[in-house]
C-alpha cells in the first residue's frame, strides 16, 4: 500500500467534531419546529415560485414558453403575409373597377356627343345616371350586334321565314 492509498484510507475514516453536529441539529430542529413557518412572506414566495425548484417542471415551462413564443411569431408572419396579399388584391380590383368605369364614361361621353346631334337636338331631357349608363350599354350592344341584326331582319324580309314567325297572324302585315 503506497502513501496515496494510506492517505485515502485515512480520509475515509475521518470523523467530524460531534459538537458541530449537535449545534447543527439544534438549528435544524429550531427551523422546523412549531414556531417555524410563521414567515408568511417566505411561505407565499415558496407557493408562487416553489415549482422552479422542480427540474421537470422548470424544463417543461421553458419548453412551453419557447413553443408559445414560436407559435405567436409564426401566427404574426401568416397574418402579415395575408394582409400583404389582401392589399394587393384590393388595389388590383379597385384599379380594374376604376379603369372599367373610366372606359364606360368615355364611351358614354362619346355616345352622347354622337347622339346629341341626332336625338337631343331641340328638346331638353333629364335622365338619371344609371338609366343613362344602361342606355349607353344598350346602344353599344346595338352597335356591336348591328350587323347580326341586319342579317336577321334581311332573312325575315326574304319571304318564307316571315311565315314562321310566332304571332304572325296577329300582325297586320
Amino acid at each position: 500500500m503506497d502513501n496515496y492509498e494510506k492517505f485515502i484510507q485515512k480520509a475515509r475514516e475521518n470523523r467530524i467534531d460531534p459538537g458541530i453536529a449537535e449545534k447543527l441539529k439544534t438549528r435544524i430542529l429550531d427551523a422546523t419546529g412549531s414556531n417555524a413557518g410563521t414567515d408568511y412572506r417566505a411561505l407565499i414566495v415558496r407557493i408562487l415560485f416553489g415549482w422552479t425548484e422542480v427540474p421537470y417542471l422548470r424544463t417543461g415551462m421553458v419548453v412551453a414558453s419557447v413553443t408559445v413564443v414560436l407559435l405567436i411569431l409564426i401566427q404574426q408572419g401568416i397574418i402579415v403575409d395575408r394582409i400583404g396579399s389582401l392589399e394587393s388584391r384590393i388595389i388590383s380590383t379597385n384599379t380594374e373597377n376604376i379603369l372599367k368605369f373610366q372606359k364606360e364614361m368615355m364611351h358614354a361621353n362619346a355616345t352622347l356627343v354622337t347622339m346629341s346631334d341626332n336625338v337631343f337636338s331641340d328638346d331638353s331631357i333629364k335622365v338619371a345616371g344609371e338609366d343613362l349608363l344602361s342606355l349607353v350599354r344598350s346602344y353599344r350592344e346595338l352597335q356591336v350586334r348591328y350587323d347580326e341584326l341586319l342579317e336577321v331582319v334581311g332573312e325575315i324580309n326574304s319571304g318564307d321565314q316571315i311565315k314562321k314567325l310566332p304571332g304572325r297572324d296577329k300582325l297586320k302585315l
Partner: protein
Amino acid sequence: MPVDKNLIEAFRNGDHEAFGYIVSQSLEPCLRLAMRFLERSEDAEDLVQDCFIRVWEKRRYVKSAESFIPWVRKIIVNRCYDFLRREQTRAKYRDENRESELYKSADSEAPDLELRLAESEETLRIITSMLSPKQRIVFILSEIEELSVKEIKDITGMTSNSIKSNCYHARKRAREIFELLDKR
C-alpha cells in the same frame, strides 16, 4: 445504516420528535459528506441545514425506511453540485493560485503548508479543490464514500461511462497532486 421503520412512519405523519431522532442518526454522515465536497465548513453546515429543512417539508414523499438515507444523500449531493458549479469561476481562479503556490512550495520550505498537510482531511480538501465539480463529486462518492457506479448513477443521474471517465481522470489528478505534496 437504514433508519427505523416506525420512526419513518411517525416522521411521515408530521411527528417532529421522530424527525429529531432521524436527524441525530443521519446528520453526521450527511455533514461529513457535504464537508468533503465544499471547502468551507460553514457552507457545508448551511447546505445540510437547508437540506434537512427541505426533507422535513417533503416528508410525505419518503417512500420507505431503506430509501430515506439514499434520498437525503441525493439531495445533498445535488445541492453540493449546484453550489460547486455556481462557485466554479471563482474556484478556478483560486485553484490556479493555489496550484502555483503548491508548485512553489514543493521546491522551497513552507512550514504553514506542511502543518496543514498533517491532517489528511485538509489534504483531501486541497486535492478536491483542484478538481472540476463533476470530478469532485464522482471522486468523493467513489473513492471516499466507496459507492458503486450504480449508486453514483442513481444519485447524480450521470451515465456509467461518464462516471467511469470522470473517476479515472479524478484519481489520476488526485494522485499527481498528492505526490507533489508528499515530495515535501
